[in-house]
């Protein structure tokens, strides 16, 4: 026979275990909408039975069940999904950060819906044809100057807009430093994330050391790791000792192995390569402690590596190429008009356009604006013919074609980035959904469990109450006869 108060103890344990499970359910429900939260579960198990080696006992197996205990609060998570989610993350943000920039770039080119540079270029050459029809007419000359001024200011404006966008990504400071920009902000955030992860890891390790479960801290660290994986390729390896996790991790970010115990001080920074050579002007990610340099410019097109750092650098290079093309068009118009003026017999006309887009001073010559009579109309026919000439110097197409190609390129890149971003977003969301299927909180499920635990709790309390009654019978009612 077990002891007198044995039944009371079983009831107490039942109450306690159900109470613990109810707490966990409450915690799950409270965090049903929390980002990065993994549902938890109290794992109950049977307590060790009491063994009574009674002889002649036919009714008992020699053991008494002694009730229930809560072994641990388990975090329900598929750790094998995490690398996949992070890989999908870097692919998604490689394209997604590009599309935000490309949308802005696209807005700079008011084609083909409204009248952009293409229309203005047509108007410009049309005005020269008018001048060819009326070579001496001051009104027509004024209109040539006016359309020229409009063309140059529109081109300047577009070029400046592109520069603003480019500098919103990377604004160079005193060489080789980067003064500001989205990329610099992201690198600062990465440094911040690395420190937070290292601090959290120290806490997690302490909890593990006392054989407890740092569930919420692990969730928090996984969230930070997820965020880190947006910025670049990240691989995480978990350490364990004798089959038990220690909580320590090592991160491989862009090929830099960053340990967390003991934490190494890691500080990433951006700089612009100043060494003469093919890599001059390239954007580099530096890490002094580990002595690593990642050439972001050269790696920009490496979609296998992915991550928003490379994506932003790639789109920045694209913008630079767009700007170069635009500038080539401006400079070509400028030089071709000069050439036409020099065609024998040379005209005594000052250069029509001066400056260039990259130096920010592309404009109609002030000498002509001030006195339109110096504009020689006899070359107007030749100048209007510029639009049919090939640009030369590796560009075997006309000015209008070159601009058409530029806009097509912008459109293609925006569309390509948009398509890839949508694709990668779908993949990444699918991964998140898979993870959500495992770790997400289902409110109805938790409510059902709640009811289950509530009844368990009530039943166990009932056991206590009943035992109380039984003991009352024995202690108070049982009177010596």
């Amino acid at each position, binding site marked *: 026979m077990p002891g007198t108060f044995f039944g009371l103890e079983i009831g107490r344990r039942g109450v306690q275990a159900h109470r613990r499970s109810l707490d966990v359910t409450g915690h799950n429900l409270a965090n049903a909408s929390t980002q990065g939260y993994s549902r938890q579960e109290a794992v109950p198990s049977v307590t060790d039975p009491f063994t009574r080696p009674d002889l002649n006992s036919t009714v008992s197996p020699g053991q008494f069940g002694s009730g229930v205990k809560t072994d641990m609060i388990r975090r329900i998570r598929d750790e094998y999904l995490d690398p996949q989610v992070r890989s999908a993350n870097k692919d998604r943000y490689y394209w997604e950060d590009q599309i935000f920039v490309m949308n802005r770039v696209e807005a700079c080119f008011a084609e083909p819906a409204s009248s952009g540079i293409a229309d203005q270029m047509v108007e410009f050459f049309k005005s020269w044809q008018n001048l060819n029809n009326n070579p001496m007419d001051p009104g027509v000359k004024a209109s040539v100057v006016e359309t020229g001024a409009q063309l140059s200011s529109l081109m300047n404006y577009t070029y400046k807009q592109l520069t603003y966008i480019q500098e919103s990504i990377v604004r160079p400071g005193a060489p080789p430093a980067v003064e500001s920009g989205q990329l610099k902000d992201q690198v600062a955030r990465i440094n911040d994330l690395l420190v937070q992860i290292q601090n959290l890891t120290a806490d997690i390790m302490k909890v593990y050391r006392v054989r407890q479960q740092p569930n919420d801290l692990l969730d928090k660290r996984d969230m930070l790791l997820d965020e880190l994986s947006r910025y670049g390729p990240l691989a995480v390896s978990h350490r364990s000792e004798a089959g038990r996790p220690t909580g320590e991790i090592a991160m491989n970010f862009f090929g830099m192995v960053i340990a967390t115990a003991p934490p190494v001080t890691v500080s990433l920074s951006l700089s612009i390569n100043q060494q003469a050579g093919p890599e001059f002007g390239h954007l580099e990610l530096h890490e002094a402690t580990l002595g690593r340099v990642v050439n972001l410019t050269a790696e920009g097109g490496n979609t296998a590596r992915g991550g928003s750092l490379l994506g932003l650098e790639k789109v920045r290079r694209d913008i630079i190429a767009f700007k170069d093309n635009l500038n080539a068009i401006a400079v070509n118009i400028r030089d071709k008009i000069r050439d036409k003026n020099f065609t024998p017999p040379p005209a005594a006309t000052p250069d029509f356009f001066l400056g260039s887009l990259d130096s920010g001073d592309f404009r109609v010559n002030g000498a002509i604006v001030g006195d339109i009579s110096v504009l020689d109309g006899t070359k107007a026919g030749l100048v209007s013919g510029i639009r049919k000439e090939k640009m030369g110097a590796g560009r075997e197409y006309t000015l209008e074609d070159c601009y058409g190609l530029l806009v097509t390129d912008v*459109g293609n890149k*925006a569309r390509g980035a948009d398509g890839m971003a949508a694709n990668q977003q779908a993949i990444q969301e699918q991964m998140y959904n898979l993870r959500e299927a495992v770790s997400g909180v*289902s409110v109805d499920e938790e*409510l059902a469990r709640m009811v289950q635990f509530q009844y368990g709790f009530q039943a166990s309390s009932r056991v206590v109450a009943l035992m109380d009654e039984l003991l009352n019978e024995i202690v108070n009612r049982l009177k010596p006869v």
Partner: protein
Amino acid sequence: MRVTNGYIYNNLYKHIQQNLSRLARTQEQLSTGRTMIRPSDSPGNISPLLHAKASLSYFEQYDRNLDDGLGYLNLSDGSMQTLGDMLNQAAQMAVQGANATYVREDLAALGEQIDKMIDHAVDLGNSSIGKKFIYAGTKNSIPPFKREGDSILYTGDLNGIYREVLSGEEYRIDAPGITTGFQVKPLVSANNIAAKVTQRQIPAKLVNTGIFIVERTATGFFLTDLTALDGVTPDPGLAGSYSWAGDVVTIDGAGDKLEGLRIDMTGTAVGDRFKITIDNQLGVFGNGRETSPGSGVYEVYNQANPKASPVDEGIFDCLFRLRDSLRRGNHADVGNCIGEAQQKMDQLLRRRVGIGSRTRHFEALKDQILDLEVKIKDFQQKLDGADMYKLSINMSHEQVVFQASLASGANMMKISLLDFLK
């Protein structure tokens, strides 16, 4: 698969966004009537679309150019007609004057009429449309011809007036007031300095025509591609022997068809190449020579300095000679002028025929442009025009999808175990 609330909500948000963006896109196309609004809408069609838009815009300009060109051509035709009538009249007077029954006084009176006719010819040379003088080349804001006593000066230039009337095609629309009989076209010119062909040196020579290329070398020059003007026959007989002195090439072989031709290459650089065409084509008012190099003033007729070759003589030479013969009362000389006047009329007619055929050409082009405009507008419409019927159907379809997704989402969110727990 285990479905959680988070999964349902995330999908719902995503689908609302997707449906909304599709709706917005369709609405945008419906309200603009275009399918291409941003470059990324259809990058492959950007280039053709920009081309089509540019073409349509240029068509307006071509049309304007054609109208302007036709104005020029019609005026040229008109003035040449008057000029031809005048020459005809002069020829009749010459016929009268050659008649021995006319006495000296009569001839002098006829001479005075011819003298006034010269003034009229100058006026015709200064014909203008709007403020543009049609025989002045591109220097056309001032009257090009000027009579100073017994000389005629031309202050226009020798450039042709061209109009671009179709993509890549430029046509000359003026009959030149005067020419020099030579054309120099630089093929390569480092310093942008043109070679100059100087006046004919030997009167009887240089009636031949041809094309050749002269190239400046380190030690002198090089003549190549000697071709008769038909452009087919190579003709080494154009310039068999030539010499080089003081940057001037002189063709000096006796018997050379271009004997006496001098090409001044002062200021040119080694490697410069020029294509020289000698066509002997007279301008409407004959040939002229620059009074001094670079002055821009051409002598069309100067009694004190007659032209070396009759090849260069034009209307004024003929009229002045007739007038002088009449004034001198020389019947025989007057008689000689009849043939000359007829010959000038023939030359004029050649120019008029050229102008007439260009006029017909331009009128045909005007029709062609109208035709092309319709075709290109149609092409543009195909590229970026919105199909309203299709879009409207799409729009209602997408509205239905959106409403269904909202309704089902809302219903799904409403159901919870909570409703059944007391």
